[in-house]
C-alpha cells in the first residue's frame, strides 16, 4: 500500500468527536498496578496525588486520571509493559481511578527536564462521568524556580493560573496536585494545536 492509498482526497480527516467516559469504566480501564509506575517501595519513589473537585467544591467520585512523564533523567520511555508491569521497567504511563472521595494517587518518580533548563512536569489527562471530553493539563515540579520563571508557556498565564499548574511538595516528599473542573480556582486546561475544543 503506498502512502497515497492511505489518504485519498475523499477521506474525511476531521477528528472523531470524543464522548464522556461515563460511569461504567471502572471494571474496564483500571488494571492491576495501573497507578504504580514504580513499586511504592522502590528507591526514589514519589507519591503523586490529589483530589478531583467539581464546581461546587465537592470531590468527584467517578473520575479517571492518567499520567505520562519522563524518568528522572528526562528520558522519554519507549518501553512497553504499562499494562503488565514487571516491577522494574519504567514505562512512564499510569492510570488511576479516583476513590469515593475523589482522591487519586500514583507511585512514580520525579520527572527530569526533557531539555536542559526546562521545567519538568507530569502530563495529566482527566476523564469523568459528566465530563463530555477529556481534559489535558500539566503538573509542574515546584523546585526549579529559575526554569519555571523562564518558561514561555507558564509566563503566558496570569500568576494565579501559573501557580495552579505547579504541584506542591509536601513534607513527606510527595507531590500534591488537586484538579478543579470548574469555579474560582479552576485548573487551567490545555488546548494543543489541532484541537478545536
Amino acid at each position: 500500500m503506498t502512502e497515497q492509498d492511505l489518504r485519498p482526497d475523499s477521506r474525511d480527516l476531521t477528528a472523531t468527536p470524543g464522548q464522556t467516559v461515563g460511569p461504567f469504566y471502572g471494571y474496564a480501564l483500571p488494571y492491576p498496578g495501573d497507578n504504580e509506575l514504580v513499586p511504592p517501595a522502590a528507591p526514589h519513589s514519589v507519591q503523586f496525588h490529589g483530589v478531583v473537585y467539581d464546581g461546587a467544591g465537592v470531590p468527584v467520585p467517578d473520575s479517571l486520571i492518567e499520567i505520562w512523564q519522563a524518568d528522572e533523567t528526562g528520558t522519554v520511555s519507549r518501553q512497553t509493559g504499562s499494562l503488565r508491569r514487571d516491577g522494574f521497567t519504567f514505562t512512564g504511563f499510569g492510570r488511576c481511578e479516583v476513590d469515593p472521595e475523589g482522591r487519586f494517587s500514583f507511585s512514580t518518580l520525579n520527572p527530569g527536564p526533557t531539555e536542559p533548563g526546562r521545567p519538568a512536569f507530569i502530563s495529566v489527562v482527566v476523564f469523568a462521568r459528566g465530563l463530555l471530553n477529556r481534559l489535558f493539563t500539566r503538573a509542574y515540579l515546584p523546585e526549579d524556580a529559575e526554569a519555571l520563571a523562564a518558561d514561555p508557556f507558564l509566563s503566558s498565564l496570569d500568576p494565579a493560573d501559573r501557580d495552579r499548574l505547579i504541584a506542591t511538595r509536601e513534607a513527606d516528599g510527595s507531590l500534591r496536585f488537586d484538579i478543579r473542573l470548574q469555579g474560582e480556582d479552576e485548573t487551567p486546561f490545555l488546548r494543543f494545536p489541532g484541537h478545536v475544543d
Partner: protein
Amino acid sequence: MGAQKLSGPDDAAESQATLSAEIEEIEASHAAAVAAGRPAETQPRLDYPPYRSSLLRHPTKDPRHADPETIELFSPAFGHRDIGILESDLTVQAGGEPIGERIKVTGRVLDGEGRPVAGQLVEIWQANSAGRYIHKRDQHPAPIDPNFTGVGRTLTGPDGSYSFITIKPGPYPWKNHHNAWRPAHIHFSLFGTEFTQRMVTQMYFPGDPLFALDPIYQSITDQKARDRLVATYNHDVTEHEFLMGYNWDIVLTGSNRTWMEEEDHD
C-alpha cells in the same frame, strides 16, 4: 422485576419532552451560527446543560493554548506483552457463549494527516445484549450474562487497523431525566502517536431511534460530526452463518510531531 423503578439521590423527574426541547434549541442556535458563517462544531460541548451531570463538571474558562513539549509529542508504548491473545474477542473470554447478536467491529485508527496509527492500544467496554454492565454501580434490572464481561483490548496493526468480535450491546436506562435511555454503544479508548491525541469516545449503531433523545450523543451539536460516531453496516465484513459486520474508522487530532525528523524508538 421488569417494572422495578430506578431511583436514587440523583434521580431526575424531568420529562423527555423538556430535555428534547433544550436539545433542539441548542441545535437550532448552532445551525443559525453556522448559517451566519461560523464553522460547524466538530467535538462535543463540555458545557451542555441537557446532560445534567455536566453542569458542575465543565470548565468555564477557555483552555490555554499550549505548544506540546517533548513528552507530549510521544505516547506510551504498548506491545504484545501488554495484551492477551483472547482480549480482542469478547465472546470467548468465559466458559461459554454470551447471549446476543454476534458482531465484528473493525476499522482503522488514523491521525489528522490520514496516516495509520500503528501498534497502539485500543480498549473497549460495553453493556451486554440486555443493556447491563458488569459494574457494581449498574442497577438496571436486566440480566447479567455470566459469559460476557464486555471488556476488550487490542493493538492496531501496521495499517492502523483494529478488530473486535463481540455481542451487540443493548440500550440501557439512566438517570438524567425520566425515561432516559442511552442508544446502544461501545465505549472506545484510544492512544495516538502523541499524548495530545489521547481520546475516549463512544461508537453507536446505525439507525438507532434513541439518537434524537440522547443528550450525550447530542452534545455534539452538528449532525455531520455526530455521524462520525456511527458505525456502518458492512456485508463484506459479515461472516457466513457466524456474525454481522460493522466498520468504524477513527481519526485522531492532527499530529504535531510532523515537523520533527527524529524518531528514537528501537
